């Protein structure tokens, strides 16, 4: 179980790094979020 939490923490840190540093990822997340909000509002 300890190993699972360690892997989870690494995955979550990797997600943050990728979103902050890889160009286009944040924009892609925002676009998905916008389409989801627009879909929910209509």
């Amino acid at each position, binding site marked *: 179980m300890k190993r*699972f939490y360690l892997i*989870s923490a690494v*995955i979550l840190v990797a*997600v*943050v790094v990728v*979103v*902050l540093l890889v160009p286009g990822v944040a924009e892609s*997340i*925002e676009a998905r*979020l916008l389409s989801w909000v627009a879909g929910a509002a209509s």
Partner: protein
Amino acid sequence: MNIVRRVLPVVGLLVLIPVVAIAAAALGARFSDGPSVFFSGGPLVAGEMVTGAEPDWALARDVGTIELQLLEPPRSRRIWIAEHEGKIYVVSGYMGNTIGRLWKHWPLQAERDGRAILRVGDKRYERTLRRIMTGPMVEGVVAELRRKYGFAATPADIAAGEVWLFELAPRAGGTGGTS
């Protein structure tokens, strides 16, 4: 029971990944020059700072949204703009209920310190936000908001504090706030 104990952390991780990704995207936007479409941004840096005579704000009639940054805190957001009789106004709805106030912080921050920077296209303007609740201009501003955006607020909503209306007045002396 054992399988639940094994599956639950995995489900939690799968839920946490998009939550963390969205939080990271929002955090990253805070350090960018201006807001994105969804997240608020950092200080408005790029663009010529226009000083001197008041511009012809008729240009705002055909602008969908503008970027507005408060000096304190130095965060920016996209916002509707209305022009009426040579003056410009911004508006915030949902201010009459707790959820709206939890969601929208900038109107309360602007009431405390109205100093702001406005960016329209590639030009920046120093302004002071002055809250307006009543007055002869309210009807005209509401009509312009209705024409541009289909915004259904009434002067009564503004007087009651359901909708907060601010004039983006020229900066005078550097301090602002309520009028």
